[in-house]
């Protein structure tokens, strides 16, 4: 069963912050985050493995609440280059290497 991402779309001005949520109905081993620009391949952002773990990558960070079976991606002081569609991918079984992706969140950053 696919995880649910929210919001489905968000429009920001450059410099504003955004939060993208990913909720699963199943217990999770890991959560992956990817970004896809129009016409391009999805690119890997980060993996979160442990409950409560937080990771950061430049001004993009994420948290993983194992008990709530959800992850959030935080984009602070957004830049034009952050525009794209963000996908979370959830791994239910440890070591399975298979991901179930959410439906995506389209992020538009305007100058």
């Amino acid at each position: 069963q696919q995880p649910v991402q929210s919001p489905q779309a968000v429009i920001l001005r450059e410099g504003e912050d955004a939060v993208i949520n990913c909720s699963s109905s199943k217990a999770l081993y890991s959560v992956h985050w990817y970004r896809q620009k129009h016409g391009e391949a999805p690119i890997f952002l980060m993996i979160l493995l442990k409950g409560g773990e937080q990771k950061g990558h430049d001004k993009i960070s994420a948290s993983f609440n194992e008990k709530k079976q959800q992850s959030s991606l935080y984009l602070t002081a957004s830049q034009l280059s952050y525009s794209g569609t963000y996908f979370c991918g959830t791994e239910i079984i440890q070591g399975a290497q298979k991901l179930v992706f959410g439906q995506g969140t389209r992020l538009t950053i305007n100058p």
Partner: protein
Amino acid sequence: DVKVTQSSRYLVKRTGEKVFLECVQDMDHENMFWYRQDPGLGLRLIYFSYDVKMKEKGDIPEGYSVSREKKERFSLILESASTNQTSMYLCASSLSGAGSRPQHFGDGTRLSIL
């Protein structure tokens, strides 16, 4: 850097044709994946291969088959193409082993079935 190459960016085929989509990766990854991407539905796994000649069905395998004769190459086959298989197809690869590994994607093949 990992390079995942899909043989065609755009492909137009007719209903009932047998269609082959090819994917090659250059980093000796054990795992390879085929996804279908449709608006509002995200990426859905069609098939997964964890080794040469080994495969597992994903979430939407109906109407598709796969072949992995060599480690670097993973082919998706539409046995008899239908219009509802018009979509963007993405191939990905990843390392195997302990822990969760990032997936590396190709640029995709936009397939139109007329």
